[in-house]
């Protein structure tokens, strides 16, 4: 049929990347527009795909291509898209385009816009190339319908992401990048063994055919071994507790666009593998391993939330929050019920949107304050940068799973799935998982609200790294003494207050690649003069706020361009979840065929 569309989705970014190799100087002036144009064409193709997708039959792979690739090994180039992969393909194309828009919109000179031209630019050509190759790998992973092709695309992604972290990252980037690539490669090797085992047993690599036969031709023991092997590889990528420790380092060190794509798309490749390969091809293995998967998932939910509660670095906290959210996704898969897997797929997309937005915001804060250390930020973001604070509040609330926003439906359905797991699974155990997951949801709310309280609330103290002052310590100190015994915020800010002075003296040197365009001026009001108790709070914004706004720019146009689509989609999927669920439900029912 119209298989050209799937091929084009992969070919456009690939062909777009090629001229960057040859034309050195010719492309340099138009580089920012070039990246946006190529990814924009890909996004347009994705939009065409969504529009011409036969929504009546989302369970059937559409736009399929089936070409001989390596005839000797019987490898085939098989692409296609169904209701499970379509949202992810569209999400990928959108996020890559938004990343390019973020990098290149407007003058391209704002901090965080790494593409600025001229000497001192940070290898803009290489960055565009890297991102486009990354897009090839990511979209290819979601489109592949052949086990080895899936693996190839899965691996292609690692290389550009490695360079993204290692070249454009923060000051600990080398170690983080090496850890990222070694850890995930190790996982991939195990997964490859599992895929080869499937191949050896069934003699085919065709995912559709394998899923259709529901594990026929493989004994239960083989299925269990294969599921564990494939699952381990996917679990590293997802990441599942306790295989997650590459993630915080990678996120903390990656540049903003790297973090966004890492959280928004790369993690989804792991969970997508469960829905595309592990569960449908190995149903008996899935049923045998599912209780373990569920156990690791709920441990991850609670563990991630607790780790977040103790984090001081904003980016690191969001990274750990991904561990928790991916725990909900894995719990959904582990239930092997339609509702649960639906929830997992929904949470997958929602997490891509919300956490993508959160990392954009964390990057924006880091670009302005030159630190993501929460105590050093000094609070008062709402007073200093009201729009940024408002969007951060929105994203945090979406992420904690408020109904009416996208984060809710996935988590709710995953828990609902755990309430009614597949018949083959022990129900009592999954009820325990459900309760633990529910408590994890409360902890999730706790750390996000504590973070909001510490970052956005309070009076802004004129603290910048390198300008030592008693400001933040004083405000945190008064906070902890006011009022009676109280919730987490008080204790947390007390802990923050104790350590902030020590931290300030050892502020980090500027990462060489992140050059502040706006040098941080010394505040006009001396720090410490304005304490939160001297000024009536509701009088702060008009006068003092204006002065602050002159120092730090509030949300800028290129940021708005990148963030507004995410905000709109979070609201859209939150208010009308049927949009996604109508796509995934029939596909999930098909893939669970043997189990439900």
């Amino acid at each position: 049929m119209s298989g050209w569309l799937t091929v084009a989705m992969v070919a456009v970014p690939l062909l777009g990347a090629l001229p960057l190799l040859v034309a050195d100087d010719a492309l340099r002036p138009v580089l920012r527009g070039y990246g946006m144009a190529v990814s924009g064409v890909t996004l347009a193709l994705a939009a065409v795909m969504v529009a011409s997708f036969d929504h009546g039959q989302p369970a059937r792979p559409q736009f399929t291509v089936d070409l001989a690739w390596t005839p000797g090994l019987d490898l085939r180039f098989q692409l296609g898209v169904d209701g499970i992969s379509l949202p992810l393909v569209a999400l990928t194309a959108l996020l890559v385009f938004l990343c390019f828009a973020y990098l290149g919109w407007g003058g391209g000179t704002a901090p965080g816009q790494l593409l600025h031209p001229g000497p001192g630019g940070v290898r803009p050509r290489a960055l565009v190339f890297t991102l486009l190759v990354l897009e090839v790998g990511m979209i290819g992973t979601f489109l592949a319908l052949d086990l080895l092709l899936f693996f190839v695309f899965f691996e292609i992604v690692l290389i550009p992401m490695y360079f993204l972290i290692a070249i454009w990252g923060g000051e600990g980037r080398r170690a983080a990048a090496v850890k990222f690539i070694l850890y995930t490669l190790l996982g991939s090797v195990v997964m490859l063994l599992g895929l080869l085992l499937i191949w050896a047993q069934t003699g085919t690599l065709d995912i559709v055919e394998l899923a259709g036969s529901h594990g026929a031709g493989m004994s239960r023991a083989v299925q269990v071994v294969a599921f564990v092997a494939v699952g381990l590889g996917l679990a590293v990528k997802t990441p599942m507790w306790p295989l997650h420790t590459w993630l915080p380092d990678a996120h903390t060190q990656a540049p903003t666009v790297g973090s966004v794509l890492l959280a928004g798309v790369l993690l989804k490749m792991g969970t997508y593998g469960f829905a595309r390969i592990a569960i449908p091809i190995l149903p008996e293995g899935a049923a045998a391993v599912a209780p373990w998967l569920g156990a690791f998932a709920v441990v991850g939910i609670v563990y991630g939330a607790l780790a977040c509660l103790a984090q001081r670095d904003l980016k690191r906290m969001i990274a750990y929050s991904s561990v928790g959210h991916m725990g909900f996704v894995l719990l959904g898969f582990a239930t092997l019920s339609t509702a649960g897997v639906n929830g997992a797929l929904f949470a997958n997309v929602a997490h891509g949107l919300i956490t993508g937005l959160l990392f954009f915001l964390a990057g924006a804060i880091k670009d302005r304050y030159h630190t993501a250390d929460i105590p050093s930020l000094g609070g008062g973001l709402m007073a200093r940068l009201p729009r940024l604070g408002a969007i951060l509040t929105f994203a945090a609330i979406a992420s904690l799973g408020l109904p009416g926003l996208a984060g809710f439906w996935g988590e709710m359905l995953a828990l609902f799935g755990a309430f009614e797991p597949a018949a083959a699974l022990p129900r009592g155990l999954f009820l325990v998982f459900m309760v633990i997951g529910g408590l994890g949801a409360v902890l999730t709310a706790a750390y996000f609200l504590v973070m909001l309280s510490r970052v956005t609330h309070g009076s802004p103290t004129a603290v910048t790294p390198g300008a030592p002052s008693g400001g933040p310590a004083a405000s945190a100190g008064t906070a902890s003494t006011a009022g009676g015994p109280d919730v987490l915020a008080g204790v947390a800010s007390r802990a923050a207050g104790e350590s902030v002075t020590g931290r300030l003296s050892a502020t980090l040197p500027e990462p060489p690649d992140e050059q502040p365009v706006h040098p941080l001026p010394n505040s006009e009001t001396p720090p410490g003069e304005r304490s939160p108790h001297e000024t009536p709070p509701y009088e702060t914004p008009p006068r003092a706020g204006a002065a602050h706004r002159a120092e730090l720019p509030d949300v800028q146009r290129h940021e708005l361009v990148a963030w507004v689509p995410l905000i709109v989609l979070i609201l859209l999927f939150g208010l009308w979840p049927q949009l996604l669920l109508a796509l995934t439900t029939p596909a999930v029912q098909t893939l669970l065929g043997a189990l439900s």
Partner: protein
Amino acid sequence: MTMVPLPAVLLPFAAAAAGLLLSRWPHGRPSAGANRRAAWIAVIPTAGAAVFAVWLAWGQGFAYLEGGPRSEPVGATYGAIVTGSVPISLTLQADDLSALLGVLVTLVALAVQVYSIGYLADDPRYPSYSAFVSLFTAAMLLVVYAGDLLVLYVGWEIMGLCSYLLVGHWWEDLGNSRAAVKAFLVTRLGDVGFLFGIFVLGVGAGSFRIADVLAAVPQMSSGTLVTATLLLLAGVAGKSAQVPLHTWLPDAMAGPTPISALIHAATMVAAGIFLVARLFPVFTAAGPTMDVLAVMAALGMLGAALAALAQDDLKRVLAYSTISQLAYMAGGLAAGSDTAAIFHLITHGAFKALLFLCAGLVIHHVGSNLMSRMGGLRRELPVTFAATTVGFAALMGLPPASGFFSKDALLAAMEGALTGRLTDAAALLLYGCALATVAVTGAYATRAWLRTFFGRARTVALPEPEPGTAHVIDVREGPRTMLVPVVLLAVPALLLGFAAEPHLDLPIAVISVALALLGAAVVYVAWRADPLADPARLLGVLRVPCERAFYVDGLYAAVVVRPVLALAGGVSRADDEVIDGAVRGSGRTARGLSGMLRLVQNGNVQLYVSGLLAGVLLIALGAVVFA
């Protein structure tokens, strides 16, 4: 006609969106013009929603309270959300109960929106404030008109969010921020149970539609029903601030006073009571749950009333009073009378909103929340004094104020429960606590009334208002936008009792009025003896525990908050040292091994040749041995 609940929900929702996006457009700066625009954006849709709500309720009127045959709900289904299991149906409906509640919600919201125009006149964040109030109104109406449990849950949680945003309105003070976080988290804890309760009911009935669930009650096993209702009760306790999840409400008084009136007195906290009434057949079929509810209510009403007696902050007095009055309603439900509970919910909504708005006028005038800074205000604020007097009379249950009738109905129901479905001990505890609470209510209401409006004026020129309180404005009474809603609310607070053909139980009425007057008299005598001293000294050794609300906050901090934080710190360290340590350790091990292997590669040809020979020898040996 079937379309009607939808616009009532959508109007305030649209107002919230418009208020957030448009009121500062195009300049984006706080200004008087923006505030004025925001005020129009807020008030007109709320008024429209009120018109729709009244229209919906017009036919039935107070039919729900009179107990007769219930009329058929009107409403419509706007599609379904497939989940792969039980689908969610997007249904809105209005029946006797929700029509009545809708009127309460929209009218109180309207009063509060108008009042806020004056109260937050020069607050630069008034536009977002009024938008959040609109969003809250929409969410509450969604709860009230929802025909599906999960739709109800969506509104239920959004209300919690609005509560969080509005309690933290003056976020410059981290104390307010902390109160907001606490309010959200405590209710969220209950809401997790609530969601699981919905799961149990939905799977048990095969549908999340409220009508289907109610119809399926006879088929469900008693185990399912008890589990479901107990789980739902967790959410009810969180939202309606009942023991043991009540601790957030007094702290939530950090928000602006109109918010305390709307969310934390009249509407949101009543949602839990409403939910039990909505699913009343489910609850009555689960006997043990009703006993639990009765015990919770009994402890809550007396404990909170005693706590109210010892507070110095006027708003905290009213907050504890709210907990106590909500416990009355919960007790009425446990005793088996949903109509009495809803009747009290409505009269309480009127008189408590009135009391809070009056407290706002007083605080606005004095510049402090503390009663020790008030006194003698009846001459300066005659209108507020009269309105407050009506409110306190209703709170104490004195005739002819509305509270008298509704409290009488509740007490009659609780007395009836002594021989009814509750277990004897629970029923006895409930009725005993209810009577004791009547006396304590009389005492604390009188104390607050006397200390605020009588005695000598203690208002001194304050240097600056505390963060989180309104401006000091030295006019005699508040602005007209604040006074008009107060006066208008005083009318239902006084007269609502006559609306629904009151059924008086005369002996109980006499007992309760006598008890309330007794409590009032004791406080009055103590106050006459020394008008400057706090009558709370009557509590003696109990005074400090009462003021601290029996140390529940401290207990939770010690049992929940600190262990969780310690655990978080432990997890963070363990993650770094154990889990990541293992990862780094494996890296180090690999490097160490490679270092050992490298020793062999030292460039010494003799070593290489000897190794080669040794290998050949081994292979040859192997070939000989195994061949």
